[in-house]
């Protein structure tokens, strides 16, 4: 079942001589529960693509249809609601709320949606992330790996349609990076969570079901990986 379809996505920055084509007619689709990684050199348009998919940026033209909704057509408020319900975002620099503790950070998007706390789910997630003894700590009291785990917990708590991860291990050491990757893969595998991972770590990218190669804003390769590790 198709969960995401991207049609002829174009994103331009600037104009005239300074015009930069960040995305140049990118089209693809992703099935529900699929793990896709996007790889490419710096400046290839990976992050731009992820931001557009995550609804935090608008394309110059093209369509992004997630679970049947073209998010490019949504107004700001509707897009915000869509984001918190359907998208889970994991960033390289975690982007946690510094004033909220682990529990509160994880539950935040759920609460923003006007829903009440699902204590059982929160406990499960915290336990699964191995953060039981850190529940009442602020992000500043956590290590980088722990912060990224909270960030993943926050992204997963609302059971989003798609989990988008932007270089989630880019700021972590190798061991911690591997732990985070394992967590993401586990959620994809166990909960059938669609996962789109942006990375320039080819070894990590190759763990996905499919790999998209971006270069100069163009999708130059859409490759299915045969063996999943």
């Amino acid at each position, binding site marked *: 079942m198709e969960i995401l379809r991207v049609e002829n996505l174009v994103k331009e920055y600037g104009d005239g001589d300074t015009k930069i084509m960040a995305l140049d007619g990118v089209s693809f689709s992703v099935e529900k529960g699929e793990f896709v990684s996007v790889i490419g050199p710096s400046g290839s348009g990976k*992050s731009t693509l992820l*931001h557009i998919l*995550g609804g*935090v*940026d608008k394309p110059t033209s093209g369509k992004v249809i997630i679970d049947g909704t073209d998010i490019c057509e949504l107004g*700001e*408020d509707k897009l*915000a*609601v*869509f*984001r*918190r*319900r359907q*998208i889970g*975002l994991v*960033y*390289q*620099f975690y*982007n*946690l*709320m*510094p*004033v*909220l*503790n682990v*529990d*509160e950070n994880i*539950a*935040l*998007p759920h*609460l*923003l*949606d*006007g*829903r*009440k*706390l699902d*204590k059982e789910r929160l406990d499960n997630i915290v336990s699964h992330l191995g953060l039981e003894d850190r*529940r*009442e*700590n*602020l992000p*500043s*009291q956590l290590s980088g790996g722990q912060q990224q785990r909270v960030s993943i917990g*926050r992204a997963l708590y609302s059971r989003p349609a798609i989990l988008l991860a932007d270089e989630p291990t880019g700021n972590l050491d190798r061991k911690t990076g591997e732990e985070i990757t394992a967590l993401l893969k586990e959620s994809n595998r166990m909960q059938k969570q669609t996962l789109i991972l942006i990375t320039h770590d080819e070894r990590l990218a190759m763990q996905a079901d499919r790999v998209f190669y971006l270069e100069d804003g163009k999708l130059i390769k859409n490759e299915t990986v045969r063996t999943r590790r």
Partner: protein
Amino acid sequence: MMNNIVFRVTRKYMSLNRRRTAIAFMGIVLMVVMMTCVFVGKQTVMAYLDKVASLDKGSWHLIAYDLTPEEAKSIMQMEDVKKTGISEQLYNMEFQATGDPDERPFIDVKAYSAECFEMNNITLAEGRFPENSRELIISKTAIEDGSSIKIGDRITGDFFKRSITNINDKGTLEFPFMGIEVEHGKTAEVPVNFMSYIENDDYVENHTPTGVKGDFTVVGIMERPTFEKISGASISALCGLEEATGDNVNLMIYLDTEKAVGAYDLESRINSMTGRDNRFETNEMLLAFSAMSGDSNINTIVIFVEIFFTVFIMAASVILIYNVFNMSFAERTKYLGMLSSVGATRRQKRQSIYFESFALLLPALPSGILLGMGLVYGASQVLKPRFDTMLSIIKSSLPKDIPLTLSFGVSEILVIIVMCVVTVLVSALIPAIKIGRIAPVESAKGAAETVSKKHYRTSVKALEKGRPELLLAVNSTSRSGHLTKSIIRSIAVFTTLIMVTLYGAQSLIKIVETKTEEDGWMPDFDDYEYVIVDEHAKNSYSNVKEILEKDENVGEIKEIVTTSFDVTVPINKLTDEVFDARKAVYMQFDGNTEEDWEKNREIFMDSMFVNTIEVDDEEFALLASKGNADMDIAEDTSKPAVLLYNESAFSTDFYISGDNCSGYKYILVDNVFNVKKGDEFILNGMNSVKGEVEMKLATAGFVDADSVKGRFRIVPNGFYIFINRAAGELIYDSVDSIPYSCMFFNDDNEESVKRLSQEFSRDNESAMNSAVMARVSELNAAKSIKQVISEIVKILAYCFTAMISLVCLLNLYNSIRGRAAERTKETASLRSIGMTDKQFTKMHNIENIILLSKGLLISAVLCTVLCLILRYVMVRFFGNVRMTSPLLPALGISAAAAVISSVMTGYCSRRSKVDIISEIRRETV
């Protein structure tokens, strides 16, 4: 200096953070501007008033009369004497060429040194100043009287002293305003400007030759000098003085205001030097404007205002600058951490803060001083017409075109610079110490706040009830450190400083008003345009009334009759509060003891006169109804009735019980009379035939400032009662009384008003007409020097409060903007996980409420403490004057703080509606 790497990095960060640097710079400039306004403004206004005062009486502080030439020379050597002028009184001479032989038959000649002409503001109408003792200038009054005297004429004659002999067998002859009392058959010397001799039954005038012959050539005609009395018998004339020889040398003294303690201090030193009580004259107006007045109230006010303004400017500036440094603490820690990791010492880290402060202060000083001077100049031009009006009310003779120019010296500029440097040093001190104390490891990590190990309990309620905005708001206000504190501090500072400044300013105004208001009563009628005041004892009273009643253009006449020292109230009709207040004032004077009070209290209290204000029965009933009095008594016009004004003030200014008063005391009593509605009220008075008489009146009720508002204004240094016509008749029939009548009326006919004005003019001093006509509005606007100062203080206080508010506003904006700017990443994160605008607004509103509540709570404590301290200081300075309640302004300021911080938060949040993408990719918060 720029080779110092710490300074270079600091400079780099200053230019990177332009907005923050600009706000810090603006704060420092504002501080310099305000300091300039206080010091240059005070100097400018004082110099202007000094000029005004000099134009009135002359540019001298003190004249010492009847000195020997040696004594005069010794005084001239005194350290605090800046400038002197010698004059010698030559007394009177017959003026053959007078144009008014009945009223002004003499000339009064004084010999002046060259300095005296300048110091006494002698201006020529024509001719030149005398160059020697044989040349003379004469007042223009001679020409106005019809004299044919002209330049080149000679005036010759013998000088004589004037005296009068009492030939009236009725008793002592008194001229209270000249301080002359002559018993029957005795002779007393009178001043040169004593009124004209008119044959009368009271006295005869004698002339005693001084032995000096005068032979002068007129070289000029001078404008009427201020010391010439229009009612005097002499026309003033001045000749040159080569060398003072006699024992009646007069020394005109201008004090060195930097060194002198005051004119009265110099007087006592001159007295001890000469070994006798010398005669002095002080130029009170000039002394007042140099804060050297004999009236300690004015001096205290001038000094207090300066201290009050300076302290508040320093406080507001310290907080603003401190806040700017404190807010950038995180960023500073980071770059100083970097420097620390490569070997920067604590001292160097501290230097960074000081470098930034002084790098901003350096350009801020000239620009602030110039801006401040511009502001003072602009304000002085705007306020000048107001000053002119006020001054012309004091002295109608003052010229209207006295220029109000900027006035300052090197000392003022130095004081401004020193005060600003001290303020900046103090502001930067705590941030510098804090920065220095950050351990090298934390500095290197760039941790602005040490990571604590404490646990932050989950806000279960907010989570369970699904209130994300509440969760975010509560936690962001309780768990984020310096930025939240900075806003709470700014709100607290905003409300506290404005509140305390406003309270201080209003109290100061109230104090100045209370202390400068002339005691007594004033009508507050807006339904009458003119008033004629006349004394009943004069023959003119019935004539005046008749003239008014016959004038068909004059409408209804409202007459109010008043007495001051005719009747007293028995002490058993006064409350204990009155006794206590009187005692407190008595005890304030040095050497007075409890025993003295107990011994003398009956005597002190017995002499308590009551001022009566007799109003027509209609007015009496109106006042009674406003005071909720017994209307049966009030409306019974056949019986003497009284409305008691139940407020009175006791102060060391008014009730003097000794030579030295240790500190000022002012007590307002609002329960004066120990009687009830319907009780009999007794008044005592003296009758030359019957002796002491007692008068019984019915107490209709009580009135106070509120109930007489709109009809009368009373400044109660003493007791006041309103009486009806029947009571008036009873009092004037019973005691020897000379009441005054105030006849209020309207007259629409210009010609008629002009005629009446001439008839009842102040200058019309004919014996038959003592009545004086004035506009009611002018009567109400009549002001003294003290009241002019009160007005000036009022204007300055409000301008100052506005400026302090501006600094506080800047501080609040800076804090809110700083917090919003530093939260852009948080904002972006929240947006990226789906927070809507509505939710943001809700979160900001909750945050605002929390921050405001915390800020206002702190402010409430601070305001209470500071207002109490301020009140204590003011009471120490000025006595316990009833000050305005700070509650209403507190509510207003709190509401203003709420509105301003909400608007600013909204504005700053909109500005920080940043590019989500760039923010979420930014590494640090």
